[in-house]
Each structure stands twice: as C-alpha cells, then as structure tokens.
C-alpha cells in the first residue's frame, strides 16, 4: 500500500523508459551509446513489439480480399474490415490524393503503416499495464522495479526515429521523382543568394522533422503526466489530511481522470493523424514541385466537374 502510493507520487514514472537489459557493443561513450552500451530490452521496446504483433495479427485478417466471385458482394464493405478500410480510404482519398496526386498509390502503404503503427502504440500506452505486469517482469529481470507499460511514442528516441524515416522518404523520393527540381527547390531565389538560402532551407527541413518528433513525443508524455499528477493528488491528500478528505478528492479526481482518459484516446488518434498528415504534406512538397502542382490542381478541378 505504502509502496503503491509512493510509486504513484512520482508522475514521471509513467512516462520514463525503464531499461531491463543493456548490451555492451563498443567502448565509445556517445549520445547513441552511453558507456558504450545500448538498450536491448525496455518497457517501451516491449510495447513496440506488442504493437507490431497486434498489427500483424489484426489488420491482414480483416484486410483480406473477399473473393467469392460475386463482384457486388466482394466490393461491399462490411464489418471490421470496413473499419480499417474506411480509415485507409479516408487517408487515400481525402488526405493523400489532394497532396500527392498521381503519386498517391506509391506512398499510401507508407502513410497507412505510419498511421496504424503510431496509433496502436499510442492506444496501447493508455492501457494500465504497468501495475499488472510488475511482478511478471520480475520473473525474467529480478532487478526490475517497473512493469511493462506506457507509450513508446512518449520516447523521443522512438518518435525521432519515425521522423527520421519521414526525412528519408522526403529526401530519397524528392531526388528520385523530382530530381533537379527538388534540389532547385532548396534555392527558391536568385543563385547569388544560394549561400544564404540553401542553409536556411536545410535548417527549415530539419526544423520540420524535429517538430514532427517533438510534437508526438510531447503530446504523449503530457497526457500521461497529467493523468498521473491528477491521480497523485489522492495520495498527497491521504498523507496530509487522512482517509476522509482523500475519499472526497478521490471521487473528483477519478471523474476528471475518466474525462482526461477520453481526451487521451482522442489525442492518440489525433497525434497519429497529425504525424501521418504532416508526413504526407512533406513528401508532397518534395515530390510534387510547385509549377506542376498548379497543373494538377487544374486537373483535379476538371475531374471534380466531371464527377
């Protein structure tokens, strides 16, 4: 009892990465390898693996093409498949197509993957797994004090890696599909100003990616800390004023926490969407260069008129 209250009294415990096992790979002490070691198992890594397993188990099951031979039956959306399909269709038709145009179907698997990967990790982070798995993890790692739980997207290393993937997509596809036009886009002015403009543009790209990583990280951390702080009020009231006032505060805190949990579910979807949406926008900026863009808008307008 005392220990649980103590644990609850530090709200940050819910968002930290708890490292269970590390491995020595080098002697160099860098940011990436503190003391030459890297993390092999942590609560966040386990959460990521659980998310991957769920994604692989759930989505293909519902996504399989219905192949009954009856065209109308096959094409009629229904059930859980329809849930995933309608999200996918939304991203493809409403988010990606206006931005990516003809390149939509080339990038849509990446966009869909990014969304569902982040969404599943966000949602898994909302489950109160940590207290439940605390004794379980001690079977494998006797020194561990914290169970598996929390959002892996509340880890800047994870969001940073995802943002770096987006950066890779932007640069590689910008060069591959737009080539010189993409490079020229780094100097949007007279060549004389290139020494000034190019670094600014590169910095701008870096800022976009940095913001992408920090936005997801901060939102996930903030929600969890907020919930933990709210719940810690109960313990604080109990130790300061006793059981009576703590019960009163508890009722209020639990009600507010429920409301905040609802908000967090919304935020889990929202942040996954924002990350994916911005990724799409950035890829679009690299792949669909401006003057082409106008022509495509005209095409779209014509297509809409025809529809």
């Amino acid at each position, binding site marked *: 009892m005392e220990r649980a209250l103590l644990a609850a009294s530090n709200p*940050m415990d819910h968002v930290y*990465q708890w490292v269970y096992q590390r491995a020595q790979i080098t002697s160099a002490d860098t940011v990436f390898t503190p003391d030459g070691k890297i993390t092999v198992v942590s609560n966040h890594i386990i959460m990521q693996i659980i998310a991957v397993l769920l994604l692989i188990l759930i989505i293909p099951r519902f996504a399989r*093409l219905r192949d009954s031979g009856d065209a109308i039956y096959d094409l009629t959306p229904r059930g859980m498949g329809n849930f995933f399909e309608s999200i996918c269709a939304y991203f493809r038709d409403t988010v990606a197509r206006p931005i990516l145009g003809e390149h939509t179907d080339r990038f849509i*698997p990446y966009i869909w993957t990014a969304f569902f*990967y982040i969404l599943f990790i966000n949602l898994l982070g909302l489950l109160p797994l940590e207290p439940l798995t605390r004794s379980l993890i001690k079977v494998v790692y006797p020194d561990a004090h914290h169970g598996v739980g929390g959002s892996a997207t509340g880890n800047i290393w994870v969001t940073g*890696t995802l943002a770096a993937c987006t950066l890779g997509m932007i640069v590689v596809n910008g060069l591959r599909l737009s080539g010189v036009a993409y490079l020229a886009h780094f100097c949007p002015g007279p060549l004389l100003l290139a020494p000034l403009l190019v670094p600014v543009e590169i910095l701008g790209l870096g800022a976009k990616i940095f913001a992408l990583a920090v936005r997801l990280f*901060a939102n996930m951390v*903030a929600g969890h800390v907020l919930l933990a702080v709210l719940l810690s009020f109960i313990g604080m009231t109990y130790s300061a004023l006793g059981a009576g006032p703590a019960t009163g505060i508890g009722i209020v805190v639990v009600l507010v926490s429920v409301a905040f949990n609802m908000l967090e579910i919304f935020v889990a979807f*929202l942040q996954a969407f924002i990350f994916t949406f911005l990724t799409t926008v950035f890829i679009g900026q690299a792949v669909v260069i401006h003057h082409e863009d106008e022509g495509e808008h005209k095409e779209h307008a014509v297509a809409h008129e025809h529809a």
Partner: protein
Amino acid sequence: MSARQINWTVVSLLATVLVPLERAVGSEGESGPSLFTGDLGNIIWSLLTFVVVLYVLGKFAWGPILGALQKREDFIRDSLEKAKQDRNEAEVRLREYSEKVIVAKTEAATIVDEGRRGAEDLRRQIEEDAKAEANAMIERARREIGVAKDTAVKELYDVSGRLAVEIASRIIRKEIDVKDHERLINESLEELAKGNGK
C-alpha cells in the same frame, strides 16, 4: 484549430510541470531515468519494428485493401458511366417513340378521314342511283300509261265508228260497200281527231 489549441495547452502545462519534476527526480540519483533516456538500441528497435510492420502489412494488408479500393473505385465509376449511358439511350429511345406516336396519330386521323369521305361518296352514289332508278320507273310508267291511253282512245274510235255506221246504215237502209265503208270511217276519224285536236 481547437485541437491545436489543446495541444499547445498541453505542451505548456507539460513544460510547467516537467521542469521542476525533472529537477526533483534528477537530484535523487545520478543514474536514475530521465525523460530522454534512450540510445541506439531504441533507434534499432524502432526501425526494426516499423520496417517489419511496413513489410508484413505491405504484403498482406495494404495490397488487398488498395486493390479493393481501386476495384471499388473502378466499379463505381463504371456503374455511373453505364447508368449515364443507359439514361442517354433511354432518352433517345423515348424521343424516337414519341415521334413515332405522333406519326401514328396523324396516320390514324388520315385513315379515319379517308374512310369518312369514302362512306360519304358511297352514300351519295347510292342516293343518286336510287333517284335515277326511280325517275326511270316513273318515265316508263308514264310511257305505258300513254300507250294504254292511245290504245283505249283508238278502240273508242273504232267502237264509236262502227256504232255510227251501224246506226247510219240502219237509217239509210242501204248497204254501203266495204270501200265506202272504210272511207267513211277514216273521214269521220279524221274529223274526230281534228275536233279532238282542238
């Protein structure tokens, strides 16, 4: 917009709460975890899990979903196009049929008119024929009456002549030869005719 505002509120809240908390926790122990705990291991794991998801879902989920979406898109487009085409065809056919109906109506009216006119002609023809026949019959009757009258008058003359001769011979007691007899009859007939002619 409101979602952005919520985000900013959350981030600013986070900043005000986090900084003192970080400091408090940091002072507890040097090796304690921090909000930024992590290293190359996290990068490797994140990349690995993400790429695995990208590959597996790309192979078993996104393909079928994209296929279904494209197929449905094509199906809907085809259906709409077909509907539009059918509609146009129906309209053309409707116009065709309307024209045909109008033509048929005119034709029917012509036929009825012609029939009426024919009937009228026939009626007139029959009437005329009847009239002509009636006239002919009347004419014939008149002629027959005329002939009968003439015969009757002639007989009357004959009888009255013979009577007159008989009466006369009885009076003169003298036989008149046949020659005289006939002459006398003719004379008296002529006189009678003259008298009758007046």
